[in-house]
């Protein structure tokens, strides 16, 4: 077995100082393997969002080491973390976070723009990604012209267009009805299986978390439980 994709060792994240000090993360130890599908759960204030931000290299630990694929990501400066995000991480948010009044294809192209990919290739890859998430023919629709489920599919296409190693999903089904939620989860599972894409997902719904191979529960800035769902077959 190769080294884990992600590892937290003794990670603390502290906000404020003196009396007002809050430890969002209090010595987290965690490893996530390549190709895994992990659900992170926990009540608000448990530290799961902070952990997600650190995993996504949007934030850095106050203390301890966060390594991404062997890189000490917690020590990287803003610009290097931006490069790391652009190359290896795809983001899917609860609120979709698509650019308004911008077509689906243009939204999907965005990560490639910042990577300097020529526009013809960008377009082709964006269309392929949209095709993969089942949105063929919608490439020129703006978010306002798409349903919530379709918008989330565009967001997923944007996350996978750069062929990342890790897909981070922050409550990806939070704004969707049950049927749409399960469709999105099926799609994430497929991507996880066919591309060996590591997926880390924050959710507070048990039935959504049930799609994952592994469930982590955060409580008071620590990993309170870690359970692996063994596959039946």
């Amino acid at each position, binding site marked *: 077995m190769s080294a884990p994709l992600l590892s937290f060792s003794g990670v603390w994240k502290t906000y404020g100082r003196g009396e007002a000090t809050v430890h969002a993360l209090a010595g987290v130890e965690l490893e996530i393997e390549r190709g895994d599908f992990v659900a992170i759960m926990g009540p608000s204030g448990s530290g799961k969002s902070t952990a997600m*931000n650190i995993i*996504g290299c*949007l*934030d850095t630990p106050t203390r301890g080491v966060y390594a991404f694929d062997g890189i000490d990501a917690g020590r990287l400066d*803003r*610009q290097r973390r*931006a*490069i790391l*995000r*652009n*190359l290896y991480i*795809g*983001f899917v*948010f609860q609120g979709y*976070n*698509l*650019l*308004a*009044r911008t077509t689906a294809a243009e939204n999907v192209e*965005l*990560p490639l*723009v*910042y*990577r*300097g990919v020529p526009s013809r290739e960008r377009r082709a890859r964006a269309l392929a990604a949209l095709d993969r998430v089942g949105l063929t023919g919608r490439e020129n629709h703006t978010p306002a012209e798409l349903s919530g489920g379709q918008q989330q599919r565009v967001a997923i296409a*944007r996350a996978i267009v*750069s062929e990342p190693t890790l897909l981070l999903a922050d409550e990806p089904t939070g704004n969707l009805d049950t049927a749409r939620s399960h469709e999105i989860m099926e799609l994430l599972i497929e991507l996880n299986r066919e591309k060996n894409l590591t997926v880390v997902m924050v959710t507070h719904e048990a039935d959504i978390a049930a799609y994952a191979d592994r469930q982590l529960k955060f409580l008071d800035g620590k990993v309170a439980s870690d359970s692996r769902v063994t596959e039946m077959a």
Partner: protein
Amino acid sequence: MIWEAVRLALTSVRRNALRSFLTLLGIVIGVAAVIAMITIGTGTTEKVKADIAKLGSNLLVVRSGADTGPGGPRVAARPLSQRDYETLSLRLADVEAVSAASQSRVRVVFGTESLQSAVTGTDDSYFPARNWALTSGRVFNDSELRAGSNVCIIGTTVSRQFFGAGDPEGSTIRVKQMSCRVIGLLESKGFSGFGQDQDNVVMMPLAAFQRRIAGSRDIETIYVAGRDGVATSQIQARMEDLLRESRRVAPDADDDFSVRDMTQVADAMTSATTAMTGMLGAVAGVSLLVGGIGIMNIMLVSVTERTREIGIRLAIGAHERHILLQFLVEATVLSAIGGLTGVLLGLGIAGGVAYALSIPFSPSALIVLMAFGFSAMIGMVFGFFPALRGARLDPIDALRHE
């Protein structure tokens, strides 16, 4: 990358068309004001120059009484005499022409038509000295000048009033109490920069004017046209010496006459209008600066409004400099559009004013480029702070922004 940013900026400007237009108004007005002011000012300067050239180049003008500066009172003094004129015309070297003239506004009548006209008694040197040619007929001959014959040369305004399109030559008009035969027609000089009709004139021999119109032998003005390439200051000094001698001015007394160098007057007027142009341009430039502050204001709004968008861009791998570039380019594109509109508007205004005031329309490519470049630069400078603010946003906070 730059091209992407320009495309993005244009899209953003188009999406907020009304807001962009209002923001641009400051820059548009600023640039238009600068362009219009400077173009009109330059046209005015050219007009003044052209007017002065029509007076005659290298022209020196002698009048009686000390010159107390432009617009100052003239000290009463002995009028110029035939002797003064003869002294100058005999002893002044390096001059093209010396001419004596007296002028009076009198009524001129032909048939039932009459006109208040500037009537000048003078000699043939007057025409070269004042740079004035005849379109038809002839100038005075020696015997007419000596005898003070009843002949006259008229300007186009007088001719049109009395004869319409017809030929005035040979007709007899009445000037005050004197009948006088028209022998020539002057070319048109149009209106002067001060709105005076330079063609409403009648010329006659000086002797005839003195006897029949003025009733005295006085000479009002002596015109001296210097030869090209001879400094007028040199001629002026020599003239002053000769006149002091001829008028017997005591060595310790001040001049009782004045010699005015029209070249200097021209220079003074030109530099005055140029200074005016510069000042108006500078005032207009201030409004450009104000326009820049408007851009900064709206860019700050734009950055705040699009905090979430910046968050998304940062999250998916945009660097600080990408965001900085995006907003800088947007501000620059915005002000460049304003600059371009302002240039067109300014040239339009200047063209209209030039037409209305019948001054030359003289747009300067340099000024247009400078105003445009300056407005684009203003966008860049005033867009920098908001852009930097956008680029420095924390992606986590920006994403959470509602």
